[in-house]
């Protein structure tokens, strides 16, 4: 079993629903995003186009972040999910620098979304899980997977651009998509063996 995600770039419209769905799922403090969409232009007028590249933790099988973690806080599960044990994280930030995808953020502070106001009840409830001085990132919505649900960004995407499944199963939707459309990870040449594949770029 190896959890993986396929993102169909021909479907993605760059709306940012994944970013907000992730924020709503995890209650991340202001300024922290596990799930981002980069927008960039290709071509010149009059044939220029806008393109989108959704980026999250790539859940690499040979993760650069794991190698540099001095305390073993970053670990990889058997099902391929890379997680951070926040009790072990000492906030050295070596992983933040090491991750080639800029998928990790250090919590310098726990900020609220309405600056100058007391935190909203939502934030009070959700931010209990965050510890200042540690590093955070996408966990492939493990809490949802454990309940048999797909990750929040997969479910919410209005373009249905995201697929989630088992890369070890050659018949799974993600495996077939990767095979049919020659899916590739972002910056494959780095050799980190990500679990996020992109198709139809």
């Amino acid at each position, binding site marked *: 079993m190896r959890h993986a995600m396929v993102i169909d770039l*021909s*479907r993605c*419209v*760059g*709306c*940012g*629903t994944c*970013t*907000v*769905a992730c*924020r*709503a*799922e995890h*209650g991340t403090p*202001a*300024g922290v*995003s596990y799930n*981002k969409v980069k*927008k960039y*232009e290709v*071509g*010149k*007028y*009059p*044939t*220029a*186009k*806008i*393109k989108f590249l959704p980026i999250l933790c790539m859940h690499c099988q040979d993760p650069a972040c794991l190698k540099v973690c001095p305390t073993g806080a970053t670990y990889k599960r058997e099902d391929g999910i890379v997680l951070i044990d926040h009790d072990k994280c000492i906030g050295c930030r070596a992983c933040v620098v090491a991750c080639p995808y800029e998928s990790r953020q250090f919590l310098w502070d726990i900020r609220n*979304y*309405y600056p*100058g*106001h*007391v935190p*909203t*009840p*939502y*934030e009070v*409830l*959700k931010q209990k899980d965050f510890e200042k001085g540690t590093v955070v990132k996408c966990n492939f919505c493990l809490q949802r997977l454990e309940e048999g649900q797909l990750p*929040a960004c997969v*479910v*919410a*995407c*209005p*373009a*249905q*651009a995201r697929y989630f499944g088992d890369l070890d199963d050659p018949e799974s939707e993600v495996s077939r998509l990767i095979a049919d459309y020659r899916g590739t990870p972002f910056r494959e040449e780095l050799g980190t063996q990500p679990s996020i594949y992109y198709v139809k770029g």
Partner: protein
Amino acid sequence: MLKRFIDYARRFKGLESNQKAFKPSPYKWKQVDPKEKGKRQVLYGLCRACMQGDCATLVYLEDGIIVKTEGNPEAPPNYGSLCPRGKSELMGLYNPYRVKTPMVRANPEKGLDVDPMWKEVTWDEALDLVVERLKNVREKDPRGLVLCEGWGQRDTILRQPFGQAFGTPNEIGSHGALCTVHYPSGLVHAGYPVAIVDLEYCQYHITLGRSLGPNFATAPGTRKFARAIERGMKLVVVDPRSSYEASKGEWIPIRPGSDLAFLLGMAHVMLFEVQRYDVWFLKNRTNAPYLIGPDGDYCRDQKTGKPLMWEAIEDTAKPFDAEFEDIALTGTHTVNGVECRAGFDVVCDEFSKYTPEWAEGICTVPARTIRRIAKEFVEHARIGSTIEIDGFTFPFRPVSLNTERNVTNRRGGTYADLTGKIINMLVGNIEVPGGCLSCSFRGPIMGPDEDGTVKPAYEAVPRPFKYPPDHIGLAEFYPHQHTAPHIAIKSILDPEKYYLDYLIEAYISVGGNPIKMNAQPHAYVEGFKKIPFVVSVALHMDEPAILSDVLLPEHSALERFRVAAFYPQHQSIDDEVNGLKMIQLREPVPRLFNTKHADDIFTELAERLGILCGEGGLYDHLNNNIDWVDKTDGLNMNGEYKLDINRKYTLKEIVDRQIRGWPYSGGKGLKDLKEKGYIAHWKPRKEFYNYYYFPDDKTRHPFYFLGLKKVGDELRANLLEHNISFPGVDDMDYVFDLYRPVPHWVETPEFRAPEGFDLWAINWKTPYYSSDAGNVAGNPWLAELYSKDPYEAVICLNPVTAQRKNIKDGDMVIIESRYGKIEGRVRVSELFHPDAVGISGNYGLGTLQSNPLNRIGPNFNTLLSLDEKTFDGVSGGQDSAPRVKLYKKEVRK
């Protein structure tokens, strides 16, 4: 000033709670009810983060706190997906800038940056104060009340009957003046609000000035779009900006404000170069063969008065409904002693001028591209093909061209949409599978009138003339207008000039924000200052709220109980929802503040005014109203479920009756709706295509737009009879030039801007701001997204233009139209036409007490004109692409 102040001081005397001032911060949130601790709950929700407001959600609560909203995976139309606004709704609930309790102004001086010195009052005090003033207004002249609605509050069912019971004709939508897109679809399809593309079948879609969903991230629109692109539909996006959608198809960059020229050029190619049109459709389903006399009217049968067509075999004119062996589509004949021409020829005569080379000179789209697009459109139309659906044979035309607000919002904009209709009619794709469909009620609405052509509906039905006018938005002078807050504000400021014989004495804002949503925001501020009494049913401290005398705080969207009928969607349609009849429930989350449901506010006001019950009361009107868009398929008070007009009901009781009387509920009520959160009924698919109800030659779409001419002629006669000019326009022909029955090129005043105004400002909706529902611009989750988006809250310029003006990416610039001036930071981008200055969304303005996020960014609307000469005389639409000059802002060292 002093008198008003004394007046206010007197009002506060004796109010027990008059000492507390409005302070948005710090604010203590209501403590979690200890009883809720440890509880988890899921409520059925119905999103309200855009105008469409039909995404089914599940709202999750923990310890009584809302922890997330998700799409309901079981329910159409979003099937579990959502958009960034919908996912952010909970931050709109937990918004410290909300109006949390009833308040009354103590400072008579009004302004966006003037502290009203709010005093908190009880609900009773606030309502009594409002009622006392409204009573006076109603006694004097009920027309003196304006009821202004908008996208901020589309969850009320009692606002309209309240206005009717009060007796004011002045219900004004704050949002529509930059979205005048409705008349042509009402005329040609008898539909509303617009015509859309059938994404289940369409193979070649041309879209102008509009979105299929992705540009402003409507979840259902985006779902359908992604599927259509995946199955290989060719998409052509004619736009000054390479939008999200243009980037998924073929982008045809066009000079802003010149779409009419492109459309006329395309129609010219189809008529004179490709010359392959759906002749059967034109002969049998349009008035193109009707003979037109020298007066521009139909040539009519002397005995029956019926319009005549030419019978080619018998070589004679016959009434349109006689037996024809061969209808002549073209030709000039003498009938009853006068020379008549086939309507088709009359249209061709006009369109012969508009060669693609001519169009290129105006719109910059190369003539060869216009030719290619026209040819491809016809090739993909599969003229003559049919498709069988549920055993019924339809013409099959998998192409559609659709236009919307950035095409129609300017002088001549109605003609642009009508030219689009002609292009569609040439391939016979109206209301058939794959083609161009209206998105209102599905049913027998395209029936013919006595002349055999589709009976106009919705905004194509002219509002009657009256002088002096009753309507503050001057519907009497713009009989096909959409909402007209921009005209209303001019009438409020200068009633005499606009022929009004009464004054606006009171104004109630219900989710409407004409200040933020229209040209020249500061003109509205002056209007608000002039109106003696302003009330806001207020969500947050927005522009109308801070200018109000009394604030009646309302629930945020998540707190509002709501049952709504699912409307056919505005962006596109496909098999995921066609034929779907549905009602959806929103179970409210516990309210956070001392707010009320807007409908409970209207009930209270009506009761205290004595207009709730009895004949002509609110309930009486509610009983007799029919849903504007979805007619009998909407939620109405039907049959035995009508209200007893002599007793009071709760909102839930009323809604329960609406559900029970809904034609597809099978007698179920509110309790049953709570099982799944929705009740869905799928109609046979064939019934979705309105062709089904009037197939073959059972009705005719207007190709020669006599209806437009007739309304214009009547209006002109009325002006002459009263010896008055068109309000704000001295030269009558300037207006009536737009009522000619055949579309023609109309040069907007922006084409004649003085030297130096060398660019055109353009604007578009974004995923973060589609319509001002629930103060999305102030939502910090969305703000985090738009603050990182390279194209948001900046001034976008093509690199060639930037270089010519010696401007670099990141420079601060001033953008100046002839009507206003704004500034912003430049983003140099290849995604824009060199003549365009791109400014997205609706940023800026805000108030002293609003969320500071509402004050950030360039306010595009400041650049727009409030001058009637720039409006479309038919729809009343404002010009959305003003000419501008742009120069570097001097930075003080």
